[in-house]
């Protein structure tokens, strides 16, 4: 009897979960000015690549966009300057209506004794200003270094989750000495560049060797709070898997930029990190607005997004090559024709520009800093 009922119920029972897009009318919310500004005590001239445009300090202005896939619009034609507490000022030059304003002085750097403010006057006459920021000097010595490590990674193999022990490298920094009693706040930018050699072109072909950069390879925002206020201890920055990582096959480098930040700048980055890590479930803490340090001088209701920070910076270019490691890993060449099967090579076998492993820029010009 009971089974019969169960069958009956099953046949009429429809249990479904559904996800639908919904819309909130946010049209009354004005678009906001977004400011991304940064200077440090490391001038462009002191960097590993002093002539690259990325080495110059810049301030980027844009307008927030509605929640969509839309790209943010840039804010062009503004007057942007950085002023210090001794009355000195430096005017930034916009690079071809890109909304990116550069300090073209290659030797400019933030001075430890000064407080800096960012001032913006947009071409519709609105004046914005940042709160003052200053350098919290902290530079690392003898860094980075690495340690061989093994890590269990849960991998999805054929729909089944299985732990897999992989070899890899832990990369550390040595936190700067901190003689003050105050907490020190750090953030790191980790951007890898590696060599990709397409197997099929001849050795002198321009399509043979490329240098691939992927800004998003290390997705995590890496932050650290040195509460003890002493410094001089190791902090792990990232784990680089070696097993199965074809990026390490030829030569692999990482540009590590270490920033010592103000407490407020650190809070800003920590908020960004929290927002990225929140998955939006009902058990997540409520989301919140990330507060920056820029205000409209005449209209406090015109909230500005973003942050102008002044950091103490250390920069290192670090290389690792799989052949330098004390072990050898099985190599495979995906472009080798499998025996007995007609082979049509994939584009990345024919040209290094067709590298398929993810990149933000590819060049066949060897960077000047490459070893």
């Amino acid at each position, binding site marked *: 009897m009971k089974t019969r009922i169960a069958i009956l119920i099953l046949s009429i029972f429809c249990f479904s979960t559904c996800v639908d897009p919904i819309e909130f009318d946010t049209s009354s919310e004005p678009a906001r000015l977004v400011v991304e500004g940064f200077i440090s005590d490391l001038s462009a001239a002191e960097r590993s690549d002093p002539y690259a445009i990325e080495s110059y300090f810049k301030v980027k202005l844009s307008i927030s966009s509605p929640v969509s896939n839309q790209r943010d619009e840039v804010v062009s034609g503004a007057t942007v300057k950085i002023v210090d507490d001794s009355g000195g000022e430096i005017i930034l030059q916009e690079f071809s209506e890109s909304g990116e304003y550069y300090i073209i002085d290659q030797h400019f750097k933030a001075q430890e004794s000064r407080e800096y403010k960012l001032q913006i006057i947009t071409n519709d006459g609105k004046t914005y200003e940042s709160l003052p920021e200053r350098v919290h000097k902290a530079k690392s010595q003898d860094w980075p270094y690495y340690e061989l490590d093994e890590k269990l990674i849960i991998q999805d193999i054929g729909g089944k989750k299985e732990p897999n022990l992989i070899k890899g490298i832990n990369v550390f920094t040595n936190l700067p000495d901190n003689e003050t009693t105050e907490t020190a706040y750090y953030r790191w930018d980790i951007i890898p560049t590696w060599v990709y050699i397409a197997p099929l072109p001849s050795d002198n072909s321009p399509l043979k060797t490329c240098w691939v950069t992927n800004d998003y390879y290390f997705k995590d925002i890496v932050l650290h709070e040195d509460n003890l206020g002493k410094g001089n201890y190791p902090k792990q920055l990232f784990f680089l898997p070696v097993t199965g990582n074809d990026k390490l096959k030829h030569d692999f480098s990482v540009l590590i930029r270490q920033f010592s930040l103000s407490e407020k700048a650190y809070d800003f980055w920590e908020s960004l990190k929290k927002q990225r890590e929140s998955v939006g479930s009902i058990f997540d*803490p409520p989301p919140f607005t990330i507060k920056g340090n820029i205000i409209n001088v005449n209209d406090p209701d015109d909230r500005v997004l973003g942050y102008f920070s002044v950091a103490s910076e250390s920069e290192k270019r670090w290389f690792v090559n799989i052949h330098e490691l004390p072990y050898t890993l099985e190599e495979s060449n995906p472009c080798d024709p499998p025996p007995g099967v007609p082979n049509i090579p994939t584009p990345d076998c024919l040209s290094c520009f067709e590298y398929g492993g993810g990149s933000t820029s590819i060049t066949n010009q060897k960077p000047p800093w490459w070893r």
Partner: protein
Amino acid sequence: MLIKRISLCIFLTVGSIVCIYAQSIEEIIISDSYQNQELIEIFNQIEASRPVEFFYKKNWISNIKISQKFENKKLTEFLDEILKDQKISYIIYNNNVVLLKGDISPEMVVSSSNNLPEAANYQVIGNALENPNNNEVIVSGFIKDAGNDDELIGARVFVEETENGSVTNVRGFYSVKLPPGKYTIRAGFTGYEEKKLSIDVRSNGTLNFDLFEETVELEEITITAEAQDENIKGVMAGKEKLSIEAIKGMPAFLGEIDVIKSIITLPGVSTVGEGASGFNVRGGGVGQNLLLQDDAVIYNASHLFGFFSSFNADLVRDVTLYKGGGPPNFGGRVSSILNVSTRNGNQKEFHGQGGIGLVSSRLVLEGPIAKNKTSFIIGGRSSYSDWILKRIKNADLQQSSAQFYDANLKISHNVNDKNKLIFSSYISNDRFKFSADTTYGWRTINNSLKWSHIFNEKLLSSISLSHGSYKNKTFDDQGFDSFTLRSSIENTGVKVDFNYVPLNKHKVDFGISATKYSFEPGDLVAGELNTNTDPVKVRKEQSIESGIYIKDEFQVNHKLSIMYGLRYSLFQNVGEGDVYLYDPNRPKEPTTILDTTHYSKGQLIKSYSGFEPRVSLRYAMGIQSSLKFSYYRTRQYVHLISNTTAVAPVDFWQSSNFYLEPQIGDQVSIGLFRNFKDNAIETSVEFYYKKIKNVIDYKDGASIILNETLEADLLKGSGRAYGVEVLLQKNKGKITGWLGYTYSKSERLFQSENEEEQINLGKYYPANYDKPHDLTLVFNYKASRRFKISANFTYSTGRPITVPVSKYSYDRILSVLNYSERNQFRIPDYHRLDLSVTLSEGHKKNKLIKGEWVFSVYNVYGRKNPYSVFFNQNGQAFRLAVLGSIFPSITYNFKF
């Protein structure tokens, strides 16, 4: 028998007699002399010659012989004289003389002159010899369920003549003060047939009532509890009572009868969303409700994250909700008190009942251990809901599993007439494994022992000891990420209550209580294979909460009743523990800790105390309407820490301590109640305004789990809520039900000199559960004795939400979401219609098992109400509707 015959005769004859005999009884003159003549014979002679008839039972007067001479005596004078020493009285009814056995007061005759008392055999209470001076006396006793001897709490006793009444206390005991005399006394209780008795009160005495449950054969089924006019006559403002019959009458989700879901249909009570656990009363949070089951506190009454509640409906007798503080014998939560009382076991026979549903099955057994002395009731419920999850088209959910069970045991023992012992035990357990990894579990275990003692009819007492624990556990017991995270709250308490009735118009309750709490806010341990996780143990806390109260219910006159009382509560947070001292000039943060103070075991860390006045008064405006006013202050010392909208299984309870101050709620309400058509229709309008001090909220981005410096992430603010609740209810007839509408606002204010410690720039913003419009329609149609249809419609404004209003790219982050200020938007409105049909099997008298089938359909038109709203990386919004389609279900309930 005779009485019946008399009534019948009168009924048949009166109509004609009155018209025929114009001559009045007053005009009948007796002039005769009798010599040892039988009274019956005399009456016959009079009847033959005069326009009057006598009604009597022969054996009352068959031995009465008269030897007397009468001259020009009126009939009444004649009767007075001959019946003088015979313990026989009479009344004149439509020109007839009705003889009655026993004395009858002159008032009685007058009041009955146009209405023959149908039950004229008076039950004599006491003995006139014990009360020679005719002093006021007390009539008291128990009101019980005639079926199982269960005491009925809140049953009403009403004396028609003096218009005073009383309500049974928690032990089913009542008392009324009366001058000696004859009265008609009524006793009634929701779901029970009213009983009317004629009493002749001579001295202090006992009068017990056994009430029978209203059978299905009756036309009328009462929906709300209490006497039919309790809404008008009760003095407590903001009190709502639901009988289990009403709860069972509502269509239930997947056929699971749910106490909490029924409460949500009342005006002023809402929930944040589908499947959300807990409920919100008058703009208060879920953690501001005190849930009691037989005096034991329940911290989390939800099964399966709140899709079901953990009360077993087959054991519940009734449910009372006090919106606001309630009477001063309750304390500890600022929003409401929900008091669930369970039944006592049948003292006479073995019985059982249960149900088989889609999600769970339940069984209750009860019976005497020693007949009329000791009884037990034991009940349990267990789920088999895994298969439902398997049917959800979601890979994660298909790998999930959910189990729950709950069980109650209650043993009651009547030591003697004056002493009674009740032992109750309750366990509720949940386990929810989400997506093959993390398991959420929570468990309540409560035990209590209560001894009730009656000193005399004026003074009763009860002492109860209770121990309760609520533990939750989140764990992953396999693999390299394995961990266990626990938190718990435990309480051990003693409570002594007295009920004292010094004078007829006063009912005084007083008592003391003390509870010891121990809190374990969080403890994380890594699993065997997990080398990545460091154990974290947030320090335990201990506290003692004590209270003392006195309250008087005073019936000033027929129009005005007042309940006034005072509670004094004291809360002590004691060691062992550490208190961090923060830099007073900066916002509290782990980095601004200057020092740590250590307190040894038992050492006082911080204490809080205060008075909690409670006043509620009722002013009657005619029999059918009244005006009620109330003011309640309550203090809450334990706090539910949750920064999610819905209560999550990882939420935990925290003690007031060095930093966390008690919440203080003040509520004022005023309401107008009016009944129509002999209480068949009840209407009410109630306004309230509430202010809560020391409400907590969290700093932007605060994480509450395993936070060792939680005080640094908590913000202290205030809340205000106000609204109007309108209720239209029909209690009698084939169609019953109610329509409730609430308009309310609930707002929070967090101001501070530090911008970081403000919320929404220090302006009022809507609380997470602010839902201005809330409408509920409950409809029951009883087509026949065996066939009943119920419907339930609910509509409410969507709850507030914080949404991304724009996005921007920053550095290497492609999309940073820019959120609105807190709670500035709302999720889509919530509405839903449920239907159910109940088919009872024929009521054959000797059938062993009585069964009924309940077919119900939840969410009839498949409204996709959001369970949660989330955003993708670009900030686009999506709603997840877990119950976004129509859910039919079938349940079989039985009783034997």
